[in-house]
């Protein structure tokens, strides 16, 4: 009985939010379409910023721009030039990106601004 009432309250609580989120899904899908077109274009050029890189594809870090502090932080976290990385996920509405170093298996969340300062190229799959 008690468990049932807890559950009912919980559903009543979360349903409006779930509805709100399904709305977001629709908006996000549209955003995604735009993004993917852009990705295909830049894939041809091979070099791009991590913010525009295609997901789940091995990428090589070509250059890391940005200030002294940011670059040092990235080195310390194990992200260096010539490292192989992969884009694992992207936040909602051009939010942060989740990038994983394929060599060391370390995942790092990067804000968009920082992702734009990291230049990568797509590695040809053998």
């Amino acid at each position, binding site marked *: 009985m008690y468990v049932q009432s807890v559950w009912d309250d919980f559903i009543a*609580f979360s349903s409006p*939010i779930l509805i709100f*989120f399904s709305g977001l899904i629709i908006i996000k899908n549209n955003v995604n379409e735009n993004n993917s077109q852009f990705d295909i274009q830049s894939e041809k050029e091979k070099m791009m910023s991590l913010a525009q890189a295609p997901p789940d594809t091995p990428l090589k870090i070509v250059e890391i721009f940005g200030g002294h502090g940011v670059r*040092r932080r990235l080195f310390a976290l*194990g992200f260096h030039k010539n490292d192989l990385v992969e884009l694992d*996920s992207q936040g909602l509405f051009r939010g*942060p990106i989740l990038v994983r170093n394929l060599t060391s298996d370390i995942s790092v969340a990067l804000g968009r*601004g920082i992702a734009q300062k990291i230049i990568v190229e797509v590695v040809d799959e053998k």
Partner: protein
Amino acid sequence: MKNNKKPVVIFIGQPNCGKSTLFNAIAGLKAETSNFPGTTVKHTHSKVNVEGRILNIIDLPGTYSLNPADPAEKVVLSHVFLEKPDLIINVVDASILGRSLELTVELLEMKYPMIVALNMTDLAEKKGIEIYPEKLAKFLGVPVIPTIATHGRGIKELLDKALMVLDEGLHVSSPSWSKDVEERIEKLTKQLPEDFPVVANKRFTAIKMIEARKLLFNEMLEEMNPSLKKALDEVRMELEKAHNAPEYEVISAERHHLAMKIFEESSKVYRGKRISLEKRLDDALMHPFFGYIVLLIVFLGFFFVIFKIGNPLEEFLLVPLESMRQWLRAEIGSGLFFHLLDGLVQGIGGGVAIVLPFFVPLLFLMSFLEDVGYLARAGYLMDTFMHRLGIHGKSAVPFILGFGCNVPAVVATRILESRRDRIITSLLIPFIPCAARTTIILALIAFYLGPFWALGFYVFNILLVAVLGRIISLFFKTPSPGMILEIPSLKFPSLKSVLRKTYFQLKSFLKFAWPILIIGSIALGLFQSLGFDKTVNLILSPLVEKGLGLPRELGVTLIFGFLRKELSLIMMLQALGTSYNDLMTVVSKGQIIVFTVFISFFIPCLSTFAILWKEVGKAVAFISAALNTGVAIVLSLAARVVLSW
């Protein structure tokens, strides 16, 4: 060897390498552990007895490197030199050995006796990494002991080895780098005058000097020893020219290559093992939508579990407390003695019956989420929103910790690299409803008005933080540098570790807050019987009575709210001379809301104020107090106007 002094043993490791867990396993219930980069922000000292010998062991905050230009890492670096360690225990996460070794090779440069604790070997195995400790030891030139801190494995071997090294000493030599880099370091080392304040050894000092490009140190050197400064600049220039990269990058790359080489030669990686259940689960948790849905459900569930455990428990525990007070009143009457005893009962009972039922589950769930590694993921997901407030997702970490207690949250702002982000986040933290304020919200609003009101209050509170963040960041011209946050691998935390952390935090409540609560209650009882409270109430009455439309008696509770927020709740009942269940006979629902709004936002509690002062400076602490009081007055006045319609 210092024979008559207790040997100093320092624990150093990268964030989230299980250092605190290992430290705890050795020292007992001392350091807080977590699955979140950068939560051990204080260092912990402890004395332990190992086979009859007392060791002075110190746990330092996790650090990626020893970069003197990073405020958090500088603290670690200076502590190492302050403590003058007889032995360093470098805790290394075996599952990300390649990167962890970068710190190890940097520590070797100091040439202090050192042991490497190769921790989380079980996790490494799961990931398909096989490490040969003997080979690793050979390359590093120091002993390597495999451990699994969570299961207590390898700890005895580690301590035995530690005693051995302390007795016999250990010669450590720094691994050498590329020839041209070494030559240039050598050149600078030779230029160091005899009386130069050398740290660790001359080569290490020279390296740190080269790395510290942006520090005040350079200007000092310019004045004190211009010829050395010239040599330093020359070496930097040469390095930069030869490698076509800034000197700090050249040195970082040297360490990186060395670490990778040692990693490759001392381990084998079997690929393809990684696509596991865990990875799939992580994909869902970090998914651009499902991630947010999970985040929401986690936090709603969080709120509900606490409410559903706390509420019945509170009602249950209040019954004996009430009957005890009735009995006291009947037996002793209403003299001074009654007021004192009543205060005592209220203080002790209030802690047990009103605060603990909500506080304990909250601390437990918070520790659980932290240990699982979900908090970092929440930080990632929140960045989208936080970014719009002018700060970034990493600030979500202190914010989320702030729901537990504002004090560690303010301390955790150290993980933010830029001063700007730190100040904004620190100013916003006191607006986050901490456990104590959540207790007030639950105990007053949810209990008397229903859970929906409480949730509404919460949502409003979070919106308020958003709006304030936006406004505060307008005062800063430079934009935030952006988020860089390591996402630790998901771990299923041991119940022991979660319970330990809950206990740890609960203990600090029992130790600091409860006595204040009890003393405060007794003091209020004394005040009441002597009539002092009327004076305080009279002084505050223009605000409390005329402004907020609350009973005048509540004025004095605000003073106590400054000590601890949850005090206001207990004091409120005492000041009104009523019991929890009969509160509604004395005040209206509207008054409860106005009171809660005021109490929640007005002035950070004493300990938050103190920590703000200590961490971000006096100015920020006072700005914070003024900001909070201002917002509290405006909002509670607004609440009164809105509710009286």
